């Protein structure tokens, strides 16, 4: 990676360089430490081009929750209009920068689709590795049991190279996997002979545009063409994945974000004559945006005495069922192919009034996050509005190679060369 200038999502602590997590509460916060992942990238020779905007604390699917304003996607619809589109989120700065050719690649993080959905929205590649492959040390926590870093780049090969540099065991992160990093780049092969690819019937949901179904079918044909056998599989608990995610992730976030209290660093608001509690309330009210406050409240609620079992314990059980769905499915297949997102990029402001419609963006991405599995989005084509659509590959635990190889097979066959017209 010598000399490659990378964009770095502002969730990664970078020594001496502002690290805000897209939040007002960390405005001007300069860590005196460097995240393990960015340190690994620097060790591999890469440089940092700059820090990239993101949804506040990685909570969002459109990069509109950032305290520093939204990111506008470099893509425009082909209707001649100038509607500003969302680059996806939460790694929206990363997806936009790579799609616009500002940076050859960027780091992202993915808690419930935050690498894959923005990659799909902007016509680039992005992979979330198996949970534990990349150290979380020095990445501002959102939901600890789900957060994973990964690369966002123009090609599958670039993703393989960059992931190799990012991953590795870190004794400073107890959830880091003590395994050597495979040579993913040299292992790349688009020959899928002997591989079985599962198509989960539960992912055919109502309300998804025809373009997306059509692309999925093309993806199936491409993988068959690459030598894979296609099998239908069932992931019966898929419909519970999103509600489960929206209990577990906010629960962990409500606790992880408690440290932003105005006492030691970051924003501090002290109302006249106010006591400690008043300082907490004022600091957090001024420092957190609406979506972050919403998730802290949801998380606090589901962990509260009297509601814990009904929500948090139940969600943990369903999470196990979802993992078991995948384990059973992988008895019949080696990889799973789905669309990445249920729509192409939407306009800024289109979904901000309705959090549930925003959350639905990650309906296909979230199950792999809950199961900790490696998953990748690869561009497959444009929809009828001229906007990119992504195909989503989910692999077995630790089988990033299988995911990358299938991604390469799609990339070779999709011939996706579209770029946004330069308007900026």
């Amino acid at each position: 990676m010598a000399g490659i200038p990378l964009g770095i999502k502002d969730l990664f602590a970078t020594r001496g360089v502002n690290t805000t997590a897209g939040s007002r509460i960390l405005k001007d916060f300069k860590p005196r430490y460097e995240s393990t992942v960015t340190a690994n990238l620097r060790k591999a020779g890469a440089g940092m081009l700059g820090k990239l905007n993101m949804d506040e604390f990685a909570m969002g699917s459109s990069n509109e929750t950032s305290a520093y304003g939204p990111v506008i996607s470099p893509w425009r619809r082909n209707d001649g209009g100038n509607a500003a589109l969302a680059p996806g989120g939460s790694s929206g700065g990363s997806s936009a920068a790579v799609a616009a050719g500002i940076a050859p690649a960027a780091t992202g993080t993915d808690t419930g689709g935050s690498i894959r959905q923005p990659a799909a929205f902007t016509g680039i590649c992005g992979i979330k590795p198996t949970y534990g492959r990349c150290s979380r040390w020095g990445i501002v926590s959102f939901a600890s049991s789900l957060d994973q870093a990964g690369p966002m780049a123009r090609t599958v090969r670039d993703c393989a190279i960059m992931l190799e540099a990012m991953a590795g065991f870190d004794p400073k992160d107890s959830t880091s996997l003590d395994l050597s990093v495979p040579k993913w780049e040299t292992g790349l092969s688009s020959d899928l002979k002997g591989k079985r690819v599962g198509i989960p019937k539960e992912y055919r949901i109502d309300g998804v545009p025809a373009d997306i179904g059509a692309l999925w079918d093309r993806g199936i044909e491409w993988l068959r063409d690459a030598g894979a056998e296609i099998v239908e599989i069932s992931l019966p608990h898929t419909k519970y994945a999103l509600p489960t995610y929206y209990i577990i992730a906010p629960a962990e976030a409500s606790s992880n974000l408690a440290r932003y209290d105005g006492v030691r660093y970051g924003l501090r608001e002290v109302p006249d004559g106010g006591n400690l509690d008043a300082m907490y309330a004022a600091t957090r009210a001024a420092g957190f945006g609406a979506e972050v406050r919403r998730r802290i409240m949801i998380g606090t609620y589901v962990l509260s005495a009297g509601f814990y079992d009904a929500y948090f314990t139940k969600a943990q059980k369903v999470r196990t069922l979802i993992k078991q769905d995948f384990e059973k499915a992988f008895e019949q297949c080696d990889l799973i192919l789905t669309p990445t997102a249920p729509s192409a990029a939407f306009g800024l402001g289109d979904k901000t009034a309705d959090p549930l419609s925003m959350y639905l963006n990650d309906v296909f991405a979230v199950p792999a996050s809950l199961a900790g599995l490696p998953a990748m989005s690869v561009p497959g084509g444009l929809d009828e509005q001229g906007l990119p659509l992504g195909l989503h590959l989910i692999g077995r635990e630790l089988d990033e190679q299988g995911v990358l190889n299938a991604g390469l097979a799609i990339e070779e066959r999709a011939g996706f060369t579209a770029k946004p017209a330069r308007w900026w």
Partner: protein
Amino acid sequence: MSLIDAAMPGMLPVPNRECIRQAVRTGMALEAVINRWSRFDRKNYFYADLPQGYQISQLFHPLVGEGEVEILLDEKDESSTKRVGIERIHVEQDAGKLMHDQHPTMSYVDLNRAGVALMEIVSRPDMRSPAEAGAYLRKLRAILRYVGSCDGNMEEGSMRADVNVSVRRPGGELGTRTETKNVNSVRFVMQVIEYEARRQVELLEEGGSVAQETRLFDPDRGTTRTLRSKEDAHDYRYFPDPDLLPLELDEAFIEECRSSLPELPDAKRKRYEGLGITPYNASVLTAEVETARWFDAVLEVGAQPTQAANWVVAELFGALNRLSKGIEESPVSPNQAGELLGLVADGTISGTIAKQVLEIMLETGQGAAEIVETRGLKQTSDTGAIDAEIDKILAANADKVAEYKSGKQQLFGFFVGQTMKAMQGKANPQVVNERLRAKLD
């Protein structure tokens, strides 16, 4: 100050292997169940001394399960034993410290203690009086110090007690309890119990009821007051810490913990008694790990156990008390003590001279043999010299000799004393006795 303990953004905790090891060894010393699988939970609440906004603790699956501690209700009565049950030991993070006296309008937070691992040892409601609680705490502290998992220093806060007290009529159900937090001496713990029990009894006798609440101890007044009631209790929103994996202990780890345990107070006391040491001396010598280690070192250099025990308890402790020194600061080393005791045992010096020699040792740091040699303190069994002094004394005290001979046997001691004095204490007392009897009887 660690970045993790200050809860900087993106910082992650890892379990401290040595702390887990010490907690497991402590559990073993309390004969407790060691849980091969345990887990960390977050206890969430906001306070300025808690940087993360949560404390990493173990609510649902603690590291150590049930155990027990045997206490002596009467130090001098071996049969007065009582077992106090241990419910669990869990490990958790300590908080920082707020300082309100450093600035006219601001409070400061000292994070040096934040994140330090601590063990919470939860006992069963088995203690029935302030004295029993005191005995339990002292015993527990002794065990912790033997194990080396805690120095037990309550004044410095390295051991603190949360004291739960309830009262009941004889034979009745346990009453509603109050918890008094962070009490930092054995004496204060006993005061809290005394005060709380009286307060609760008075409440009940006036027809009131005891509120389940958290209380604070005021050491200046010796009283407790409400900190927060049950209604104000935090909802801590405990949940498994997603930053830490469950802790699984393997056999090798457990085995190392077990094999590195030292001989514990009860076992040591029994061993000492087996050597002929009196139960009282054995109990005194094993109460503090420093004393026991020191005494073991004396035994190792070959001292006779009962003689050594008597000497340490009677002579050395007295001397150290006068010097206000603990045994770990004793100017006399176990080796030197062994040498001194050896000189008494082989008849080189008398017990009386040994006292003098000890004083000189404490003053000068010289060895016992050297002192005896250079100061000519060697005991003499030279019957010629002794006889000569006896003859002089008997001649000078003819009246007393007459009284003795007419039946006043108690005067024998007077003649012994006079002879020893004349011999400057260096005469072998046995020889003096023999010679006196030969001449008088």
